[in-house]
């Protein structure tokens, strides 16, 4: 309980900034949707380049990769 109240003292996130996120996210949804659509149209005509460094990409060093896979299996 005390944990969360401390977090609120830490810094002010701004009420306006909390409210605006609903609108920011809605606009982002439309942008991403139309981007995806464009991407699909372009790839249909073979006009796309492979994406190398998106938000989900995590770059692991080649030599470190193998032992990890062994560990996890």
């Amino acid at each position, binding site marked *: 309980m005390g*944990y969360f109240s401390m977090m609120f003292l830490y810094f002010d996130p701004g009420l*306006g*900034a909390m409210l605006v996120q609903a*609108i920011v996210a809605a606009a982002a949804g439309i942008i991403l949707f139309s981007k995806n659509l464009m991407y699909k149209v372009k790839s249909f005509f073979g006009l796309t380049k492979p994406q190398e460094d998106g*938000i989900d990409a995590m770059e692991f060093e080649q030599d470190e990769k193998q032992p990890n896979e062994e560990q996890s299996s």
Partner: protein
Amino acid sequence: MKSKAHRHEASFRDPSGFIFEDGGTVKRAINPIYFPVYQALCDNDFFAPLFKAKMLIPHVEEEQTPERIVLKPDQLDLMTYPYEWSFDQFKQAALLTLKLQNYALERGFSLKDASAYNVTFQKGRAIFIDTLSFDFYQKDQPWRAYKQFVMHFLSPLVLAHYHGAEVLKMMQNHIDGIPVSLVASLLPKRTKLSPTLYTNIHLLAKLEAKHNDEYKPKSRKMHLSKKALSNMIRSLYDYIDGLELKQQTEWGDYYNKTNYQPEAFIFKKQQIDHWISQRALKKVLDVGGNDGTFVRALSEDLDLAVVADIDHNAVALNYAQVKANKEDNILPLWFDVAQPSPGIGWVNQERSPILNRLSKWGPEVVLALAVIHHMTLSGNVPFEDSARFFAGLSPLLIIEFPKRKDSWVDSLLQRKREFINHFDHYHQENFESAFAQYFETLEQVEIPGSKRILYLMKTRS
């Protein structure tokens, strides 16, 4: 809590823990208030993939008691701050922060702050250093650090996109990031037509101004689905990823503009290389190092070369090469020798002056190639003062002195017009006697085909 006495000056804002120094080693203490989050992060194997991907500074747990947990992180070579980064370095720091938020959200966590000071550069890449920035994700809650992200990252980057990289130095005045109302007023009107900038900057500024005086923030329930939050993060990522500096001019022409004959250039390279490899020097600070051409020409396998330059384009070109060649031992630094970044924030110590950080890092040698005439003739810094400055940085100095007859020196002198006689002190004997107060000259060579001399100097003890 005796360790609190050693708490680092920058580490007081977050109640989750603090940074302290233990016999020269930087460590992180976690307070009991943060134990539940830390435990959950460990239980979910949250850290290991981030360490492997070099996105978060690796640490080992050193101590665990009911009062505190102590982590020992990998030690940083040199901490650099946002106002010392080129545009692209700044951009990489922003993208890294969004990547981490995306990673955290997928695992039921969220970044509780998004300060640009949570990121620095180590081994050639942006790395997140605040291990305690992760918190539990609260279902359907907006991102608490959103405004901070806008103020620390989006705002300076967008302003630099429209007004040039110099804007990034504004971060030196605004330790909490650039106020959104200021950004909104500085951006061109047409940015209101951009859905990303309209919502993230203009509308944010408007709503912040409107709700600034409300004292009952808890009376409003705010909902934002995780999907919507994720969309927001992804869209910000795409937008920032596509941002570029308009002023970026043609590069690669730098060394063509110098007054060197090719053989003089090669001689200079070989001489410096000889001095450095002879002594097996591993830590080099190149003041006025341009795009890093000289440190790249060294055959010695350096631990780290910090290449400082006043010209944003040079720093940007340097970082582009670091990135392209995956170099892990060159750190580009945007640095004005006549106005190094000062201590800012709480008691001027929250973010320390660059000169303190540099001397703490401790370069074994300083290169000052083709800078002394600029310092003396453009900056009007007397030789005695520049000598004291260099002596405070490192025990060894390799300095290039262009004589009065050098064409660059002549050009700088001609710009003084009727005051040209006030600069009669610029000649070799004065330079040597002033530097002799602080240094002993070990070797000196004339660079053939030029009007320049190279000195290898050692500080007097």
